[in-house]
């Protein structure tokens, strides 16, 4: 269920990312509760289908999770969304299912926004996702941060890299492409 929803959203929005303007991360982010961030990552893993340890490795110098957490926290549906995973942290898959099928549109579409954030590094406001213009791509509000631009999972799933930013060695374009499992497994 979540997979189908994710693909639909992904397909609708993918064409719009390149035109989004990068926005700076807030200079003084609000204090975060580390336990809350961990729960957010746990839920994100279930929503995206990407392992928790891939989204937020134990030794994680980039910590893009904080950028996404801060962005999501600013949405009115955040408290309700986190309440779902807090109710049963041991079953994030069930929590994700409750999020994407939630009767409360604020929670349901925030879940979709979080999926898009991880895959595209961009923020699609839930209210915009809720009422998309027919037959046209949904424009993102912004690229969430410079780190988000480099870490967007869509590129890894496509065995590629964002424009202007590659972590591969000089001349990689003449080598055999890496396997998908090298990126996402």
């Amino acid at each position, binding site marked *: 269920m979540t997979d189908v929803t994710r693909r639909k959203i992904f397909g609708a929005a993918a064409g719009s990312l390149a035109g989004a303007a990068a926005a700076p991360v807030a200079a003084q982010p609000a204090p975060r509760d*580390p336990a809350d961030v961990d729960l957010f990552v746990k839920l994100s893993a279930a929503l995206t289908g990407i392992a928790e340890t891939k989204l937020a*490795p*134990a*030794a*994680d*110098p*980039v*910590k893009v999770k904080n950028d996404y957490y801060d962005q999501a926290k600013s949405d009115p549906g955040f408290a309700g969304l986190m309440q779902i995973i807090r109710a049963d942290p041991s079953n994030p898959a069930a929590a994700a299912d409750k999020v994407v099928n939630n009767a409360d549109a604020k929670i349901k579409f925030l879940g979709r926004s979080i999926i898009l954030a991880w895959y595209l590094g961009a923020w699609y406001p839930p209210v915009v996702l809720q009422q998309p213009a027919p037959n046209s791509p949904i424009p993102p509000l912004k690229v969430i941060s*410079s*780190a988000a*631009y*480099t870490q967007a999972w869509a590129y*890894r799933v496509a065995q590629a890299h964002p424009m*202007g*930013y590659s*972590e*591969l*060695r*000089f*001349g*990689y374009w*003449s*080598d055999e492409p*890496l396997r998908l499992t*090298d*990126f996402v497994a």
Partner: protein
Amino acid sequence: MTDKKSSGLHWFSPTVMRPGLALAAVGVFSLGALQWSVHAQAPAAKDINPPVANCNVTPDTIPDPADPNKRIANPIVAGFLTSGQPCQQVVNTKGLVSDPLGNLQRGFDFYSWLTFIALNSPADGKTVIGQGPRPGGDATTRWESLANYRQLADVMLDKGVQPTWGERIVPDACKALDGPNKMIVKLGEAAWNQPFKTGPLIDQNGNYAVFDILMNQPMFDFIDQKGLYSKQGQERFDSDVVFPLGNNPNASNSTPGRMGAVMIKVSWRVLDPEKDKALMAKFHTVDALIYFPGPPATKTGPTCVAKTLGLIGFHVGHKTLFAEQWAWTTFEHVANAPDEEQVAKKTLQPPYSFYNPGCPTCPVNQTPPDPWDPPASLKFPTNDKSQVVRVKMLPDPVLQEVADLNRQFRALLKGTVWENYMLLATQWPSDHASKTDCNGSPAPTFLANTTLETYSQGRVPLASSSCMACHGNATTQHVPATPSDFTFILEKAQCENGNCGAPAAGKRPAQALRCGLAGQQH
């Protein structure tokens, strides 16, 4: 507390005994047997990364006597001043904080301080750092001794000539000025222009800052043995460039410690022994002969001028096991420039070498107007001076951890020139075996020295300074170009006999340094 035995601490790698390490151990002993058996037939090839008897394996934390499941800080004591140079980092995911990344970072930063102390100890190998004969206990350092390190200009020689380890080269223009303990600094663009040709750094006296690059013997020997000291030699080299790794001794499989490749980049400011007399005990200094070789390297010259130089920046790159992308240490003089917070809060502590507190409206971190080529006086031709501010590039926990280490190590060095130097941080690969991030996910993501990456401070991917993201792009002069294992040194190789000719089209090695470098050993 100094633990000179193999510590047994686990690395952050998920597999402690990696296949590469096991293979290396086999290689060491089989090579030894081979050398013995064929000794009568042919001279054994020189071991470019020989065993080191005294690797410093001091950890930054030790088990808590009250609770074996916890670790506490290893007290920073005077014994560290003579504990030697680490061959590899000793780090642990467990430590003083809950975040594994923070504990690993502290281990690398602790390693950087031990490395700084070892490399800047007196060259005689006996005197303790800060106990030398010059003001502030200064002395010629180990890295300034020809026995230990060699300047890049003496490796990549004119006409691609093969260099000789330990040979001091005195240009004709400098011979009349030469004397004991004089360091010759050969100017090329890299000696006064910042990375990516972003411009020179001009101090508050209007003098150019000067940069120099050096390498240790394992790195030199690799270049020498592979013939990489000339452009044609690099074209002939159809293999991967893989410099040797440093590793700690491993008692469990009798693997000896090895130092591996180390490269150093330093920055200097000009000091006037009379006008700057009060500063002489606050800087490590060297009596230098600045050699201007003339066109095309410098517009001025050939000529040579004598200058007293004060150390303002100190980079160390060390290739080690589990840090095949190298570990990148950077120190700088505490009076180079204020940081952003000091400027904002008006808590300046002048004087600064590169900041004028009396000019709050001067644009900061801007390159001076060109032309940039330095004259023999090393005075910038206009009144422009660099107004440098240290940009906040590191996460708060790293800044706090580094400040704490600096406070303790600088206290050890109190009363010496060396108390005036501070660690900025160490950049290291948090995922060294990644197949998709050849830079190994550098931690911290960005790092800069105010004197060596002045104009690329910041936190913008690719645009702002990151040791590994930048050096990961370095290539050889092979055609087609091949990765040069995180060093730009090979770009300085010159054409044999001055004749470059048409490059012979070579082939790209089949495994040209793809990601997942674990196990590469020499």
